[in-house]
């Protein structure tokens, strides 16, 4: 570790403007995380245009703060309303809501916040030590290794997308097909542009992201718009008891590294990390029967794990340039547009940027505690915002965002088309993340595939020629076959029972 860069980064992170952006990002993130139906991906997608004209590093600080802030916010609505703000906050509702019903809403909120702080901070420390070496390692990757790594990421996200793998593969392939639109980088052949100059550079994936995550999400939420609102629990004492802390501290510190590892792996994310944190603690507990009845450690463990996972997921994104989830794919899209190209070279050419980000994440986690504990009274008023006013406004922000990307109303049609597609995906339970990920990495994947074949004169042996490639191929095969093996084992057990 180079202390010079660390100090530079710290100095950058504590300029008043950057502090303001971390705070704003954390606050906005908390809010989008809290609101049911709006996740970090939607939040980042809708707010991308706001970062226009900012210094790239400030914009990056803001967007990433929204991303991890949303993890804090997600548990607010799980605890108070029993409606998780996003998938990674589902586990927090198992014990959070029963606690709230017992009149311990404030304590649940506080312990969730502290757990999030520990999880987030542990993961930032992990990031500090792991991201650099991983970037050094990734710099040795040739085109063949990159192609296989991307293939592994895609296959992992498909096999981990809950439910149907067939739907996951279709979603991924659809993304890959769309990613081939535009001028081919190696031969300058125009592909599938239908003569439209707007398509020469391919479909702008930010439009697709805003279309699917903002418009599609709003359309989907219109289905439930006229349902009566949930009854909200009151928040009383905002501090937890000594017993609650004693019961929770080990689960918090155990779940943080667990979540971090899950986060670094492609495909898995906050939702898997928090479930894993919850079930692990229930198994380790001497009183597992108390889980689900409103026990503090049942809130603490998943919250620690999912915050840790969200920071962990930034590692492959920033050090290898490969996102492992839908939300980090959205972040990648935003960063590229800001002129920041994540990948091993970023660590070499702009170490100050990385260290500024690391320091801002430490500060951001502290801010988020302030936001989530001191401002909790104010924040839960946000939950009162009627969805029938909120959703049309988010839709409009989506339109403005799309317009600012290219100043062309043609993008409005693309936006609406992908909104409808997003709605159809949601209705038919097709996973969206493989599509977004494939669309974003598809172009590089194809280029790397072809470059490797050029290097090897067309021989496929190039994909087996280095130890890294062989390991990656084994991982790809495992990621695809494990779900089948698991379900076969399950069926066998079910038959025996």
């Amino acid at each position, binding site marked *: 570790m180079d202390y010079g860069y660390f100090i530079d980064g710290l100095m950058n992170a504590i300029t008043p403007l950057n502090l303001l952006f971390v705070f704003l990002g954390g606050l906005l993130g908390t809010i989008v995380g809290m609101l049911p139906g709006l996740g970090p991906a939607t939040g980042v997608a809708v707010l991308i245009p706001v970062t226009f004209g900012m210094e790239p590093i400030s914009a990056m600080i803001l967007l990433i703060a929204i991303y991890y802030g949303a993890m804090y916010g997600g548990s607010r609505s799980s605890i108070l309303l029993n409606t998780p703000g996003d998938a990674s906050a589902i586990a927090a509702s198992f014990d959070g809501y029963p606690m709230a019903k017992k009149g311990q809403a404030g304590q649940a909120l506080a312990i969730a916040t502290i757990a999030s702080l520990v999880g987030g901070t542990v993961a930032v420390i992990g990031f500090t030590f792991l991201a650099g070496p991983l970037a050094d390692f990734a710099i040795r990757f040739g085109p063949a290794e990159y192609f296989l790594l991307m293939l592994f990421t895609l296959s992992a996200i498909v096999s981990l997308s809950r439910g149907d793998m067939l739907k996951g593969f279709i979603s991924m392939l659809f993304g890959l097909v769309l990613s081939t639109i535009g001028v081919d980088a190696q031969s300058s052949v125009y592909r599938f542009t239908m003569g439209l100059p707007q398509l020469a550079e391919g479909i702008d994936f930010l439009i697709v992201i805003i279309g699917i995550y903002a418009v599609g999400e709003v*359309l989907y939420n*219109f289905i439930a718009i006229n349902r009566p609102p949930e009854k909200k629990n009151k928040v009383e004492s905002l501090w937890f008891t000594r017993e609650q802390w004693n019961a929770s501290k080990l689960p918090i510190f155990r779940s943080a590294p667990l979540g971090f590892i899950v986060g670094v792996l492609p495909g898995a994310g906050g939702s898997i990390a928090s479930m894993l944190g919850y079930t692990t603690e229930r198994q380790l507990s001497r009183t597992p029967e108390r889980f689900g009845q409103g026990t503090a450690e049942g809130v603490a463990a998943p919250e620690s794990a999912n915050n840790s996972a969200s920071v962990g997921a930034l590692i492959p994104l920033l050090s290898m340039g490969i996102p492992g989830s839908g939300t980090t794919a959205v972040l990648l899209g935003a960063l590229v547009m800001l002129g920041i190209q994540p990948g091993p070279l970023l660590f070499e050419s702009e170490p100050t940027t990385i260290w500024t980000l690391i320091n801002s994440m430490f500060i951001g986690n502290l801010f988020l505690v302030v936001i989530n504990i001191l401002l909790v009274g104010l924040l839960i008023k946000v939950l009162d915002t009627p969805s029938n*006013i909120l959703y049309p406004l988010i839709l409009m922000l989506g339109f403005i965002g799309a317009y600012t990307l290219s100043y062309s109303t043609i993008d409005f049609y693309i936006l609406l088309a992908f909104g409808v597609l997003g709605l159809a995906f949601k209705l038919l339970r097709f996973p969206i993340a493989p599509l977004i990920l494939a669309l974003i990495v598809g172009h590089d994947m194809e280029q790397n595939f072809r470059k490797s074949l050029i290097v090897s004169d067309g021989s496929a042996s190039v994909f087996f020629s280095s130890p890294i490639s062989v390991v990656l191929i084994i991982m790809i095969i495992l990621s695809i076959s494990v779900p089948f093996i698991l379900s076969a084992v399950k069926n066998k057990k079910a038959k025996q029972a």
Partner: protein
Amino acid sequence: MTVVKLSLPAVFILTAVGFIIATFNLPQASLGNAFGPHYFPMGASALLLLLSVFYFIRSYRERHEEHKEDEDIRAVAKGRTPYIIGGTLIFGVVYALIFDFVGYIIATLLYLGVLMFIINGKSKWLINVLTTIIFTFMSWYIFAELLNISLP
């Protein structure tokens, strides 16, 4: 129900077929391998076609079975939801058509106003009107004035 469920795989199948045909019609590259630009789209769309057809057939066979997603799909057609979703899309197209001619403020006032009334009905007209006006002018101020993004 069956039509709704089969429409998405149908879109995938049509997309795949479209891309396969278009790939055959791609010009050969003058640099490097003449068919270099062809392999990847051909492979991806052929696989997409295969899996989508498989999914289409599976959905068709299972059309009488009850699935988790069925409740959501029925909810789309229930009550005012189809009007809200349909209205959002139709007036979204109108918004795109008039945007450049009447400018951001008028177009947004109209679109958001219409949306608010479709969603909330006439009885909440005051909230609808206020939200529309406040949002339109505030967003215009933030984007056009503070962020220097030129809106028509």
